[in-house]
């Protein structure tokens, strides 16, 4: 079974497609970096995989199922602006939320559930902050807490939307280690990022996007000067000791 099968797909909001011509397969255990400038459709593709963005054309299977049915098998780290830090919940309570769909309304948090929560906290290095209010964590720690929430249900596919944005070096390194561990445990990972070196470090495959699919394949085969130039048109990127001119946040 493939983690993702997307055939000639377009995704969008309402009737209009924001992203077209997506066509690739990702096997279980492989990891994919989505690379492209701002507004290129990286987040739209992640939302399409979760069934939040409409499939306007083509076909998509996630872990062999429709996106909506596969949601419970996926772990998702949204961009940082989706949570309300006024809600007074602790880090441990946030991580436990990742098991609510499985637990239902009334099933008590048993010893096994509590162990899973503690393990998820340990995986992201937040054991000491477990009892602190989420709002009192730093931005990087908050990202790691949400990642722990995504991982606590042992998902088969993990989707990370710009997880490295705004992180300082220690938090970045922690997150990188967590993604590497996920890969080695056979979990499929899809991560949207601007950082080409990071994509090389943690991903087996790359999908280049700019409103449409520019290229897909193994990292070394796709991160070429020609394709990078086609994806980003304008500003400057370092790639294999060459300088490529592109336009946006990589500057």
């Amino acid at each position, binding site marked *: 079974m493939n983690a993702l099968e997307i055939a000639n797909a377009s995704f969008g909001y309402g009737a209009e497609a924001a992203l077209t011509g997506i066509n690739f397969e990702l096997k279980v255990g492989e990891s994919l970096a989505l690379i492209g400038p701002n507004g290129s459709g990286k987040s739209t593709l992640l939302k399409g995989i979760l069934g939040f963005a409409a499939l306007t054309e083509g076909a998509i299977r996630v872990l062999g199922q429709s996106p909506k049915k596969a*949601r419970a098998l996926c772990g998702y780290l*949204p961009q940082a602006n*989706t949570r309300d830090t006024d809600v007074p919940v602790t880090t441990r309570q946030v991580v436990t939320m990742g098991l609510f769909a499985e637990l239902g309304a009334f099933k008590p948090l048993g010893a096994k559930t509590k162990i899973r929560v503690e393990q998820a906290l340990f995986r992201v290095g937040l054991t000491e902050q477990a009892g602190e209010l989420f709002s009192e964590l730093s931005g990087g720690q908050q990202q790691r807490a949400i990642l722990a929430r995504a991982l606590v249900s042992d998902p088969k596919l993990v989707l990370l939307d710009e997880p490295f944005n705004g992180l300082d070096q220690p938090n970045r390194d922690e997150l990188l280690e967590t993604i590497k561990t996920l890969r080695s445990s056979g979990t499929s990972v899809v991560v949207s990022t601007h950082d080409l070196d990071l994509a090389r470090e943690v991903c087996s495959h790359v999908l280049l996007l700019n409103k449409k699919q520019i290229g897909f394949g193994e990292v070394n085969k796709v991160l070429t000067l020609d394709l990078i130039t086609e994806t980003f048109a304008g500003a400057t990127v370092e790639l294999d000791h060459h300088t490529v001119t592109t336009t946006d946040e990589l500057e």
Partner: protein
Amino acid sequence: MLGRAAFFGDQVVAIFGYPFMTRALIAMAVLALASSVVGFFISLRDLEFVSDGLIHAVFPGLVVGFALAGSAGIIAGAFVAAVLAAVLLTYLMRRSVAGNDAAVAVVLTSLFSIGIVIVSKQENYVSQLEQLLFGRLLTVTDLQLIQIAVVATIAVALVLSTWRRQIFRAFDPVGFLASGNRLHSTELILNIAIAMLVVAGVQAIGNLMVLALLIVPMAFARLVTRRIWLLLPLAFVAPLVSSIFGLWLSFEISVNQQVSISAGALVVVSLLGCYLLALIWYLVRRMIRR
């Protein structure tokens, strides 16, 4: 000093020995308990304006129920209107037909004006309107007390049975949906619970002042603490203490001064007094920390 306090305590206990005062206090205690639970999520989700919309939308149901069956019909009419209004508002907010606030405002003003048109067709309409808008806390009957308790229990049960979903939804709606939870039904259940609490509170303190009960207790609690386990007890105690004080004051003024003042209004004013004290305490504490 102690003797004076004991005398005052005896006086308060004696006043609440009257059956009509006992019923009023029990009604307010039930409403305080329910509002602490439902109000928690109104506050977390910033649903204050939506709550106002639901309150106004319930009004035509009150009026139709009253027109068809007198006081006994109020709860039934309000119950039906509450469910319909909650479904309508949830749908409009989800669809973003005209923006959340605009959708609520359209429903709020249209349904409230329909209610006024219907009630103005009745005889003695000013008196009836006053009862529906401001309630009659001191004339709550045994039957009404049971109705209040049943409807408030439904509101609390709806929230408690979806507690985990409501917390997750309030904290992170995108993560909530991505984890395989159902967003629409979770929002609808909370809106119905708010509407049920409106229905429960309307006979005691009226259609207009029930908003204070939905919003002020949790606003008070959030000024006092950020500990989640302490929010609900504080949001229960504040309206309970306000009810005891407001009812006592209403009784004292009417007996000693021969002046009739709405007991419901005095309870709400007392509650606002609690909020004001908490606000001052919060501001002072913040200034000291700086």
